[in-house]
């Protein structure tokens, strides 16, 4: 399948991701060390991932939020994840719930 994504996007994400890793290994990261940056960097994933859950669950087109079949699937998935279900089971339960409601 041919993509619609620019290779520049792939390249910049790759370079930036390696940049962070290497910065840590080669001391450049020491500028940003200290407990404050460590705490904030550790809290970025839950904040951004929650944002992705929200947009992936409620957003349609541009500037619109709706409640539809996705919410039921995500709720089932959340429950499974909270109970420590493995990744494949969580996504399968979420997808199947939403797919069933869409029939």
């Amino acid at each position, binding site marked *: 399948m041919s*993509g619609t994504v620019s290779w*520049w996007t792939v390249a910049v994400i790759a370079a930036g991701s390696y940049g962070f890793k290497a910065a*840590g290994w080669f001391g450049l*990261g020491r500028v940003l060390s200290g407990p404050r940056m460590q705490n904030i960097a550790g809290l970025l994933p*839950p904040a951004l991932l929650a944002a992705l859950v929200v947009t992936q669950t409620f957003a349609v087109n541009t500037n619109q939020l709706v409640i539809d079949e*996705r919410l039921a*699937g995500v709720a089932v998935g959340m429950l499974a994840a909270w109970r420590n279900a493995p990744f494949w089971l969580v996504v399968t339960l979420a997808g199947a719930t939403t797919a*069933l409601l869409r029939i």
Partner: protein
Amino acid sequence: MAFGTDVPGSFCHTRSSRVKKRIRLTAKKYAKDAVIMGAAVGIFGAGFGVLAVDSGFSTLQACAMSLLVFTGASQYSAASVIGSGGDPVSAIGAALLLAARNGLYGMTMSSKISGSLWKRAGAAHLTIDESTALAVGQPDPADVEGAFFAGGLAVFVFWNLGTLAGALGGQVFGDAEALGLDAAFAAGFVVLAMPALRTPAGRTAAIFGGTIAAVATLGFRPGVPVILAAAGALGAYAIHTPRSAR
């Protein structure tokens, strides 16, 4: 040599066998953990391959992401932002905000693993949640380096094989929406966030981030709300860190 270790009167032999056995056992221990972890991550990788192709990445680009970016949450977020109509700048911003923590892992690991420039440059690429967790979790400091590379390489192999399988298999899914893939990916983000959600500060960050994203979706282009949600991390930090420790 089935009875080798039981030969009586051969102290030296027995002792070296014991040492060998111990080395073999510890090697087995983290190698097994690494493979189990890698196999589990392979399914994540397949999920990324499906999402990436569904979002407009080519199969080659999906594989390039997993080979070169090699950090799961960043890859998922980039694909989700682009799939929802976000521009490349938002996708890059969200991916790199999520990649920042690997810098902290790199700092932690660089104090435990030394070696040539090439070795450390390679180790840097393998610096992710899983390899760092496996290495830091070793009770014997002598195992840290082996566990880091075993974990990193196992995840790297399975993650990339999974991505390829998902990208190729994902093209078979005709109607991604009828299969509930949009909800499945949202649930996938929940799984990625789960370790952080088990801490009070992580939960606060998630509530702030989710709320900011919901409100911002009403006024901004797709992708921007995810970036703005980073402010949720600052808010959670301000609330959960005692003033004296800031």
